[in-house]
């Protein structure tokens, strides 16, 4: 009977098609000589069939009800989008966000107003600490450093002297969000770094017509449409730039 106990498990596994070849051979040899195990296998097959038979059909309005609930639910968080990109692109996108943050912090923290703004945004200077590599690190070799400790984490190692060069190397997936909150995604917004001309026009007082975020949710640009041009303000240096509308939208590429 000890023997049969062993084979009972093989019978169960065989129903699931998960036997190895060796096990399969052993089982079929055993079944030929064992009445008990043949009957057991037979019973299990019958039960499995009856089980499937017993399943009730789902209610007709199931899809409808689920979708009605889904439409009322908050939109999914977008965390996974960035995970879907290759590690190197992730590193570069994260780095780009960090460079912006660092630049933004550098200019803003000089004034007390900026400091209070950054405090209000929940960003402490510590979280922006960057460890600069002694020499130019090749972009391809850059990896985000592992978190070391809560208050001393070198988030990224890069060549602080030439961040733009490194950023040019990777696409920057983004989300373009209009004033109504509806979103469209684009594959690469990195062209905006070098698009258009800086302008000393005042920053429009009205709410931006669009904002552009990276896929991790960091705010990159605010955009205002003005006649034939687009004013866009980089969140990093706060400078306002102006570009001709056509070339601006062309630079953003296809949106979906």
């Amino acid at each position, binding site marked *: 009977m000890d023997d049969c106990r062993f084979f009972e*498990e093989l019978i169960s*596994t065989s129903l699931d098609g998960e036997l190895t070849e060796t096990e399969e051979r052993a089982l079929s040899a055993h079944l030929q000589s064992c009445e008990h195990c043949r009957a*057991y296998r037979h019973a299990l097959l019958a039960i499995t069939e009856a089980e499937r038979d*017993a399943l009730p059909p789902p209610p007709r309005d199931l*899809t409808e009800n689920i979708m009605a609930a*889904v439409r009322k639910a908050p939109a999914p*968080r977008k965390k996974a989008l960035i995970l*879907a990109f290759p590690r190197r692109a992730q590193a570069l996108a994260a780095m780009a966000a960090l460079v912006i943050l660092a630049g933004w912090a550098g200019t803003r923290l000089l004034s007390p107003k900026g400091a209070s703004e950054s405090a209000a945004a929940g960003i402490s200077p510590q979280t922006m600490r960057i460890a600069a590599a002694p020499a130019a690190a090749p972009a391809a070799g850059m990896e985000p450093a592992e978190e070391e400790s809560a208050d001393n984490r070198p988030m990224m190692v890069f060549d602080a002297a030439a961040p733009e060069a490194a950023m040019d190397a990777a696409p920057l997936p983004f989300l373009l969000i209009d004033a109504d909150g509806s979103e469209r995604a684009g594959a690469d917004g990195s062209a905006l770094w070098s698009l258009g001309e800086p302008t000393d026009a005042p920053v429009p007082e009205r709410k931006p017509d669009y904002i552009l975020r990276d896929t991790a949710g960091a705010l990159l640009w605010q955009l205002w449409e003005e006649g034939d041009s687009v004013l866009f303000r980089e969140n990093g240096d706060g400078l306002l730039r102006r570009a001709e509308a056509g070339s601006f939208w062309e630079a953003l590429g296809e949106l979906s």
Partner: protein
Amino acid sequence: MTKEEEMAVIARVLRGDTDAFAALVTENQQRAYHLAWRMLGNEADAADAVQDAFLKAYTSLGDFRGDSRFSVWLYRLVNNVCIDALRRKKRWETLPLEQEDEEGESWELPLADTGPDPQELLERAADREAVRAAMAALPADCREILSLREIGGLSYDEIAAALRLEQGTVKSRLNRARKKLCQLLTKSGNFSASGPSKKGKEV
């Protein structure tokens, strides 16, 4: 739906196309519902649980990384929702043997002018009812693993990941579940166990 199609739909949903989610619902709802029904033992609770699980899947779709099939991820959510529901009802260990006897739904004979003879239909209906009762009487961990395997169609690897078990435990627990089910049915005496051989399915 292929894995690529699935990921494309998910990407659309994440970009704000909520209605695209319906494709994932229609593709997976039947099995999800059967899983829930098996766990909870009644249709209204099963429908609620499936709705909850899909809602959870939707709101946390950003966490789905595509390491497994969407269905596997969903079944895990269904399973968790069901376990929560059972805990709430404090009937985690055993369910009553007699469930929905009053409804008698599965006793209804289909109106068939062709097909198997009435005697066989009656037997099959009785078997279904007996299996249903025995399933409900199984310990929850047995019911859970049998459902993931037989309704969800999950592989041992997938079950191991979903329930955080060793492969060996998956194998032995499935065996234990089936053996128990078999014992319950033999004891009840309501199961014909004539089996599929009649229909020539015996290999």
